[in-house]
């Protein structure tokens, strides 16, 4: 019998990470009101998810599933399609960087870069939607640059948080336990 790329157990884990992304978006609050600040939480979750299920495409599955959940929950300001694609592209962006950097999320620099590019996936989706739909140009001239940098910084912080979480999980023996289960 042909072996499936993701096992049922891995898919369940990825679905749980997707739910965590949504819970983080709804429940976790930071006093920061800069655009993209929630990336601290969800990029950390995606980086942990990509290490727990170490296969290319894992982040995309988390992104797409959380996108479906977010769209049905009515999250976001720009409609369901925009919300779905924004979340999905977070996963796709992360996967592209994981592929380029050989999924080495135990390396702090790699985790930060994956966090940045995953989060930029969301920014680029929103920006492209604006360009395609003919949205007016930014009211504040440097608003776009500010938003870009904000997404980069919060994505990087998310990568750092994800890396710290992975370190803590490793120290606690989580990955050894998972390997035994396999």
């Amino acid at each position, binding site marked *: 019998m042909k072996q499936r790329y993701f096992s049922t157990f891995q898919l369940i884990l990825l679905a749980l990470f997707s739910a965590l992304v949504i819970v983080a978006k709804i429940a976790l609050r930071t006093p920061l009101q800069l655009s993209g600040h929630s990336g601290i939480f969800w990029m950390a979750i995606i980086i942990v998810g990509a290490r727990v299920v170490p296969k290319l495409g894992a982040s995309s599955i988390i992104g797409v599933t959380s996108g479906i959940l977010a769209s049905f929950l009515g999250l976001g300001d720009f409609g369901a399609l925009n919300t779905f694609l924004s979340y999905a592209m977070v996963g796709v962006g992360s996967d592209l960087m994981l592929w*380029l950097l050989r999924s080495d999320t135990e390396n702090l620099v*790699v985790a930060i870069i994956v966090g940045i590019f995953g989060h930029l996936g969301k920014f*680029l989706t929103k920006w492209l939607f604006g360009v395609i739909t003919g*949205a007016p*140009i930014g*009211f504040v001239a440097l608003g776009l640059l500010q938003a870009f940098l904000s997404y980069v910084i919060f994505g990087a912080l998310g990568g750092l948080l994800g890396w710290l979480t992975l370190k803590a999980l490793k120290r606690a023996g989580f990955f050894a336990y998972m390997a035994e289960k396999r």
Partner: protein
Amino acid sequence: MDQKKRILIAGIILVVILGIVLGVDFLQRQQATKEAPADMPPGSIPIFVDGGFVASFVPDDLSQLPAASFVDAEEGKTQDGWLLRDVLLLYLGEDNLQDETQVTVSSSSREKSRSLSWAEIDQQENMVMFDLSGRGTLKLVSTLPGFDIRDSWIQDVDKIEITSP
């Protein structure tokens, strides 16, 4: 290829993406400057009174407006920006605005608009205000019953129209 080279490639991709985003934004601003009248800087929001253009809400005037904010009940997110009331008072003065005056804020790209009376806008507790969206455009938000959820808010605002009673 070693990991250092891969990280360098990632850095280059990041710079290229930034360049594309800023380049497209620059071209859009150039285009908007060409198309807009001289008294309407790109990105500004034109204000029309009874069909006639009277002023343009420009970023340079933001320093004259007091900041306002509220936490929306739907997502618990802080919406912060400038009250529509203060914007209209800055450009039109109180004499041009009566309780029954209708103010319509619209977005052509999103094909959405909302008409409110000056009485509703003038009540500060209604928090009818502009919030700066992630991509730098203005979003009309409020705590007014019926106009307090994200679906009803006007994103990418590009016009303000005032109709006298």
